[in-house]
């Protein structure tokens, strides 16, 4: 069963596993034209295509809201579950036990994760479930037509709502406080950065929170807003240039095919300036090129400091804020059999008949 619609004039170019970009596409979007979420969906398609991801190895999840509709706009060959408002993390937690080799790809929003779903969001962090957790963050409720979200700027004025009295929740800060193992802040308008971080997030073993500032062109795109295109364009201050390099050796990813290749070679423009390499568990690497100054994304305290600095000085800090590449993911902690649980048979699941006598003997 597939929801793919034939795409006119699609390219026949294929990646290393013989799939074309069409194999990664979804249905046409039903969101507003110019919505930041659409460009994120497109980067998911491109990132998965370029990283040779096997679509059947990805499981898509979402909650409720504009952002949560978007999993139908990419990866039609992946299973997906559009769950309840704020309850995506628990559903994903259970589902990923079905087959520990699968990678979750969740799309939520600031309403879904920072308000109704704050509890589950934070517990997904501390369990380090093996998924990419995207928050398409626009500071506003879109699907219910323009109410303040918990990440909205204090003092924001919206038609029908008046002035927002409350301080905003910082998704990255919450993720860090809950000990997430991979935290990035990105701007939907910076497509290359989104794409490269997505590839790294997919290769990371554990939860990768991507707080992507994704402007809502209908309800919250006024120049003064932190979540507008104009703010992002003017005030984005990336920590580094990011590129992702698939593994050439070492334990390889279960979700993508990695073609044999020589050692990582850096393009000429990457060689200038300070280079930092972060190795992920499957042998892949994130290459960070320092811009103003070197930034160490493995230091949680430093991560909190840059977030705080950006707040204090009203700019949009982007990049890989924090990563702990060696943290075990949830299913790693469960001493599971090698066969995925959902392929076990009756003989694996029902104790032998002779055990029942022993059990009855225990019942005095």
């Amino acid at each position, binding site marked *: *069963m*597939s*929801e793919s619609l034939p795409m006119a004039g699609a390219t026949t170019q294929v990646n290393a596993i013989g799939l074309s970009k069409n194999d990664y596409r979804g249905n046409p979007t039903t969101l507003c034209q110019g919505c930041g979420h659409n460009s994120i969906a497109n980067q998911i398609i491109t990132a998965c295509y370029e990283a040779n991801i*096997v*679509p*059947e190895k990805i*499981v*898509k999840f979402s909650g409720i809201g504009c952002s949560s509709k978007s*999993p*139908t706009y990419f990866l*039609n*060959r*992946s*299973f*997906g*579950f*559009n*769950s*309840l408002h704020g*309850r995506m*993390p*628990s*559903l*994903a*937690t*259970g*589902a*990923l*036990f*079905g*087959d520990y*080799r*699968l990678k979750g790809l969740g799309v939520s929003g600031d309403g879904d994760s920072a308000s109704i779903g704050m*509890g*589950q969001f934070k*517990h997904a962090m501390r*369990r380090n479930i093996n998924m990419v957790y995207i928050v398409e963050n626009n500071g506003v409720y879109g699907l219910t037509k323009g109410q303040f979200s918990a990440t909205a700027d204090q003092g924001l004025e919206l038609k029908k709502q008046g002035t927002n009295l409350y301080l905003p929740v910082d998704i990255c800060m919450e993720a860090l406080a809950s000990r997430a193992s991979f935290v990035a802040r990105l701007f939907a308008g910076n497509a290359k950065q989104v794409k490269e971080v997505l590839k790294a997030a997919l290769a990371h073993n554990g939860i990768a929170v991507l707080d992507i500032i994704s402007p809502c062109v209908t309800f919250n795109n006024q120049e003064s807003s932190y979540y507008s295109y104009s703010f992002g364009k003017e005030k984005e201050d990336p920590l580094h240039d990011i590129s992702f390099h698939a593994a050439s050796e070492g334990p390889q990813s279960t979700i993508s095919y990695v073609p044999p290749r020589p050692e990582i070679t850096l393009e000429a423009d990457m060689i200038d300036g300070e280079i930092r390499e972060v190795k992920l568990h499957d042998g892949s690497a994130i290459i960070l090129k320092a811009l103003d100054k070197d930034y160490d994304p493995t230091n949680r305290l430093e991560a909190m400091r840059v977030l705080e600095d950006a707040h204090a000085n009203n700019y949009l800090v982007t990049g890989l804020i924090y990563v702990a590449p060696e943290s075990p993911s949830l*299913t790693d902690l*469960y*001493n*599971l*059999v*090698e066969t*995925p*649980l*959902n*392929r*076990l048979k*009756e003989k*694996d*699941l*029902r*104790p032998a*008949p002779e*055990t*029942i006598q022993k*059990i*009855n003997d225990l*019942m*005095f």
Partner: protein
Amino acid sequence: MTQRIVNDFSITVGTANGSGSSTANNTILRALFKMGIPVSGKNLFPSNIQGLPTWYTIRVNGEGFTARRETHEIMVAMNPASFARDLADVAPGGAFFYADDIKLPINRTDISIYPMPVKQLVRSNPDIPANLRDLVANMVYVGILAQMIGIDITKIEQALKFHFKNKEKPVSLNMSMVKAGAEWATANLTKSDPFYVEPMNKTEGLIMADGNTAAALGSIYGGVQFAGWYPITPASSLAEALNEYLPQLRQTQDGKNTFAVVQAEDELAAIGMCVGAGWAGLRAMTSTSGPGMSLMTEYAGLAYFAEVPLVIWDVQRMGPSTGLPTRTSQGDVAFVANMGHGDIDSLILLPGSISECFEFGWRAFDIAERLQTPVYVLSDLDFGMNQWMSTPFQYPDVPMDRGKVLWEEDLERIKGDWGRYRDVDGDGIPYRTLPGNTHPLSAYFTRGTGHTPEARYSEEPDVWVVKMERLKKKYQTAKKYLPRSIVRQTEGARFGIIAYGSTDPAVEEARARLEREHGLKSDYLRLRALPFTSEVSEFIAAHERVYVVEMNRDGQLQQLLSIKHPEHATRLIPVAYSDGLPPTAKWIWSAILEQEEK
């Protein structure tokens, strides 16, 4: 002295919560059980860790009636806070044992009074370390009681060995206090009450277990693969039993787990994890009680509509709201029958014994996966947390039913031509695929919004109606997979009784008493599942009056029966009462008698 009363009375022990009396009380219960005497024990405890009054009531009954008895023939008073009340509660002609450090007035002359020098006996034993004195003090009343009513000391030792898993030191320490109590009683007390126990052979081949352990074990034999739960009285011990027994029963030879148990952050997440796991093809379960059920309602509705199998154990306690957290009830039946907003039909299993808690533990997974829907199992605190005599657990007599699942080779065979919500077989049950399936046409998108048979989003009115009608058809199909009611008929019955769950022993005792003392014979249908299958309406149709017995205020099952069978509604008479305590036969027979004598 009046005539001996043998094997037919109740013993109630009043202590302070957290004083360690449960070992002593369970020891008495198990010793009586090992003497072959039918027995039950009910812990009537407060929502508190330490300090509040708590009671344990044991019923011995040679005839095998083990519902709670409303009278207390023997009372053991260890708690000054409940002393006056405990004294007043002793049945006339009964016996009152009390710790003699409690210096309170005793104003009854119609009962036998026995002081017990508990503290003195404990202090005079040099082997007892000071920090264990309070704990083993309870063994003094075990010994005194044993001596005074005839409990076999060797059976007490057997019970202690079981309790302490044959560890010699605690067994001998406790036994020394039991013996000290018994010896003191022999030397110092003169029996003036008529109550005795005598060995029988009525418990041979039986086991003793609580319903939560039975449910956990049944689930393990049903192949549970994922459990998500959140602590709540009285359901916690179900998940804890999973944690205890899963590693023993469900590891591979090389020590790997075929299961995962996650303690969630709340009940919203506990069920969310189970819906995810069930969707991904795991036998998933959660266990909770009323307040947790309220929280789980949201995901339960999604699971019903998106057609995800999972098993939900509701170990009922008294609601509404926080209610009486440590007291029993059957108050969730009507709520669970329609658990969620919109049109919802729930499949509910109603175990009526400890062995059925085990059986429904495994059977629930077969039903859930066959029907691709949540299955609710309604137990209660009385089952869940008290020790009951039971027939031994029976190994499942049918192979697992994993339902309609398409794997790679199945999709290959049908050339990928499938739709997640197509009614291919005409029984309302569609086929599903599971994440991890590598066939390029295996994936589909699951949602709680309107969807076509191909699982695409749709708001079309016709598509909506087709979906909802198919779910209704599936609900009808479910009837053939559900356990049927147990019907017990008596020649010349005047009326019928319908009941379910833990009230069974009280109902049977009430029937016997109505027949014996009032000549009122009855038929009895013990309901074991919802939706109602044909034998239920046939049973009602065959009786002019049907008493529906249940532990809630409003007669919830009687109301559900009236809705589903309006043609019979006037025949149904509620016998509904709920005060938090396990039911006694008396409230059933007296309510029925009153109606019958009208």
